[in-house]
């Protein structure tokens, strides 16, 4: 049906998934750091995290990606020249993952900060009163509750992120979009291949949505449900 390009498309889909998961890891680290900075008492840290989230929400992801890819290439080679390295080609995979992670780290900062603030103060205080150390308070009491409050936001960020990975094809990574483009060029059937790509993206987002729904149910065990 796909003129033998099905395997290539699936390979691209795997790359798309791997970009998405790696970016999620980067975004998680940045998001946690950002949330800690925003919740900390230090003014400079608060300011820094505020600047980070504001900047990211003001600039399109494509512009950010082009800046990191082309600008990062130049920066690395300027540093390399001084240190006497040979010419380094910036890997589009690394540039893509870092950019997407950097962008969605800002959104996760807000999600995690909101989730932390949604846990009632009394919970922390009670845990401290029991003599738990700060790490135990986080792991045993605040963390699990935070996760429940963070899930809707997390699911949202993940869905947007998986779709955002489509733009890595613009900087030359051979993800699903560029595989579809190649197959379209070779067979002159662009509609077929872009529809196939769309169906795979839709499958990814649908499965993710389902998974997050189940998780949400799991984490809401013991929460009182009321209906109108």
């Amino acid at each position: 049906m796909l003129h033998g390009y099905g395997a290539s498309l699936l390979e691209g889909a795997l790359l798309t998934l791997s970009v998405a998961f790696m970016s999620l890891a980067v975004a998680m680290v940045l998001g946690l750091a950002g949330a800690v900075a925003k919740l900390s008492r230090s003014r400079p840290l608060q300011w820094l995290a505020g600047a980070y989230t504001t900047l990211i929400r003001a600039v399109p992801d494509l512009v950010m990606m082009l800046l990191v890819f082309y600008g990062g290439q130049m920066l690395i080679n300027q540093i390399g020249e001084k240190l006497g390295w040979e010419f380094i080609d910036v890997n589009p995979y690394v540039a893509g993952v870092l950019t997407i992670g950097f962008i969605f780290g800002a959104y996760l900062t807000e999600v995690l900060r909101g989730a932390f603030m949604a846990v009632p103060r009394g919970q922390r205080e009670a845990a401290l009163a029991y003599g738990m150390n700060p790490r135990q308070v986080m792991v045993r009491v605040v963390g699990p509750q935070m996760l429940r409050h963070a899930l809707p936001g997390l699911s949202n960020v993940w869905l947007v992120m998986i779709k955002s990975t489509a733009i890595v094809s613009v900087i030359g990574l051979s993800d699903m979009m560029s595989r579809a483009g190649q197959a379209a060029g070779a067979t002159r059937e662009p509609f077929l291949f872009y529809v196939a790509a769309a169906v795979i993206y839709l499958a990814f987002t649908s499965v993710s949505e389902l998974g997050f729904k189940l998780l949400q149910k799991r984490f809401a065990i013991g929460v009182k449900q009321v209906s109108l």
Partner: protein
Amino acid sequence: MNFDAIIDSLPLYVSGTWVTLQLLLLSCGIGLAMALPLAMLRSLPMVWLSWPIWLFTYVMRGTPMLVQLFLLYYGLAQFEVVRASPFWPWLSSPWFCAVTAFALNTCAYTTEILHGAMKAVPAGEIEAAKALGMSRWVMLRRIVLPSAFRRALPAYGNEVVLMLHGTALASVVTLLDLTGAARQMNSNYYLPYEAFVTAAVFYAAITAVLVALFRAAEARWLKPLLPRS
């Protein structure tokens, strides 16, 4: 920073900003105009009406806008019928395809936003309207829509800002919008920092204006609905 090159390219950026703003206004305008009836139909208690609309928004929200744009711009050319049709001059223009793809995409999100806002109208208000003998249309016009529009403002403001960022994709189909201008400048001078940072500053300025506009709108229309702080 090479400021001479930036100043030399400013006309390019200004015309790019104009293209970006046109894309944004057209697609958001068309998207909102289509979303309004769709959201109303989606909120009616008839499944055969609301289900196809849900399916449309689900598919549009579940796939990347880049795929939707490519489907329109590259995909449709696959069919002889399309190429022979009188619409071909439009369908082969990147400008038309970009506006259509963006409008359909934002229409799906806006439909869901408006639908959510309409569902959030308190049941008592609707019951009161029914008790007063209002027909469905009068009730929508007088009670549901005014308060739904107010409630939808924050989410719609977000959507417009995201659409501004989405219009950057137009540069991928050869349009010279703000991002296209930056790519052009980068290939003219090979100055990636200057090129993309300048574009980022322009985008940030437009975002700031949009956010300020929506803040003002919220202060004017949403405040009365919120609890007093």
